[in-house]
């Protein structure tokens, strides 16, 4: 049951993309998403897809993990597809069944929107698959640092995020253990009506919350004992540094952007 919740889906590795500065990867992902929106035709999408697949292959991560991220939003994609298919009524009619009319333009828009959604998800998958959650928060903190001038609590938010990320696996482990312990006492989490199942969660949730609060208290004490007092003046063990590779990655993204704009300009399919 707990197996199908994957939050930290980082795949450790040592590829070019793995070694990039997390800030580069964050910015590149934002840029990629922007490029997906810039593209106006399938040729652009094809190019972007080729780029993303090439990146994925270079990291050594199996493509099935890239696809797996689509599962949770499959419903949205299908919904978008059919919405566009049935309600875009311009263009030449292809099929007419009862009150439903499918036109060539509708089909095109539907496919276009669905592809765009898929590409958006796959691009962000590439980021989370190759960047550890901790590196990700470090990168975010560093990117949002400048906003501290306008009292945006970048450090605090990043700290909360890294603590949350650090404890998600621990809590999942604990939930698994408690669940087994209660099952050993004859608890049944799997069958029964909705109300019964909700009730069955009590023996799981109470110990889980008690444990979470205990951990939070311990952690707060441990941080206090080591004189933690917020982000001001803190140095880090792992300094983020842009290198030559980051420049190369930036250039690759720019090139992709230029190519997509070019395809738009010549109105390729």
């Amino acid at each position, binding site marked *: 049951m707990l197996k199908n919740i994957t939050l930290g889906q980082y795949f*450790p590795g040592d590829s070019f993309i793995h070694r990039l500065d997390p800030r580069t990867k964050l910015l590149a992902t934002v840029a990629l998403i922007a490029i997906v929106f810039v593209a106006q035709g399938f040729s652009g999408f094809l190019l972007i897809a080729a780029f993303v697949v090439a990146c994925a292959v270079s990291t050594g991560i199996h493509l099935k993990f890239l696809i797996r991220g689509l599962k949770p939003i499959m419903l949205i994609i299908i919904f978008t597809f059919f919405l566009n298919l049935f309600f875009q009524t311009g263009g030449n009619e292809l099929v007419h069944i009862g009150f439903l009319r499918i036109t060539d333009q509708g089909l095109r828009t539907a496919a276009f929107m669905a592809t765009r959604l898929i590409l958006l998800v796959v691009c962000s998958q590439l980021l989370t698959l190759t960047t550890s959650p901790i590196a990700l928060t470090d990168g975010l903190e560093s990117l949002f640092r400048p906003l501290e001038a306008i009292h945006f609590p970048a450090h605090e938010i990043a700290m909360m995020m890294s603590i949350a990320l650090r404890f998600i696996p621990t809590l999942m482990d604990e939930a698994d253990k408690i669940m087994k*312990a209660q099952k*050993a006492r*004859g608890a049944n989490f799997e069958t029964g009506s909705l109300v019964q199942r909700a009730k069955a969660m*009590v*023996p799981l949730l109470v110990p889980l919350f008690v444990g979470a609060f205990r951990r939070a208290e311990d952690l707060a004490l441990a941080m206090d004992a080591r004189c933690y007092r917020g982000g001001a003046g803190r140095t880090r063990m792992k300094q983020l540094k842009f290198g030559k590779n980051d420049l190369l990655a930036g250039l690759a993204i720019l090139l992709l952007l230029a190519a997509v704009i070019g395809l738009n300009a010549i109105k390729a399919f």
Partner: protein
Amino acid sequence: MPIEVKHLTHVYMPGTPFEAKALSEVSLSIRDGEFVGIIGHTGSGKSTLITHLNGLEHSEPGVVFVNGVDLGEKDTDLIAIRRVVGLVFQYPEYQLFEETVAKDVAFGPTNLGLDAGEISERVQTALKQVGLDPASVSEKSPFELSGGQKRRVAIAGVLAMRPSILILDEPAAGLDPSGRRDMFDLIRGIHASGVTVVMVSHSMDDVGRLCDRLFVLNRGEIAYSGTPAEVFVHESKLHAIGLDVPECAKLARRLRDAGFDMPEGIYRTEDVCAAIMDNLTQKGDAKC
């Protein structure tokens, strides 16, 4: 044969980069009324093994039989198995959740569908069995109790299901010396009442003192098995896999190495003391 395990292999998270083989080709059998110890270094697969013994985990290949019932069969009634095989997890005090101790202990029997009278009778008996006074603790919140008391309540929660096989994962972890002694006395008492006991532990001293038979796990495989005396013979090899033999067994071996007449395979404090006394009196006799 109450428990029989054949060729059990378990892999965590197969097909991912985090794949970890926790058990490989484990076979063992546990007889009625035995007190069995499972011992191994951290991460050797002890906890994984015992979660297979009441069907919480299931893996292919491998079969686990409890009283002749194959736990891997689809139509096996696992609730019925869990009523026979009681499992007390490591740090069981963290599974308490009810408002009162009595309600928490009643959780298992309630899940078995017993009637109210039977449940309250079982709760009383189980609390007494673990050395708690039902009158004074029943209505308390389990969260008010001390760590050792919480653990007793958790064990009572399993005992209230009246299992004929009781498995305990490191029951003495984190207790002080007197708490450990009480815990072992408690377990010995449960065993004496006719329950087959399987105890997981890190400590050779503890399993040596209590168990009839030991299984030593090393990296998911059974490295040694047999009576404590048979296992403790492998002192240096046990040392190499991160385990130790009881202090008294070590003392006996060193005395034997130094030329004293110490019998092989003694490890109990009493036996070693007696052997030393024998040596001393023999020498004394020779001198006079």
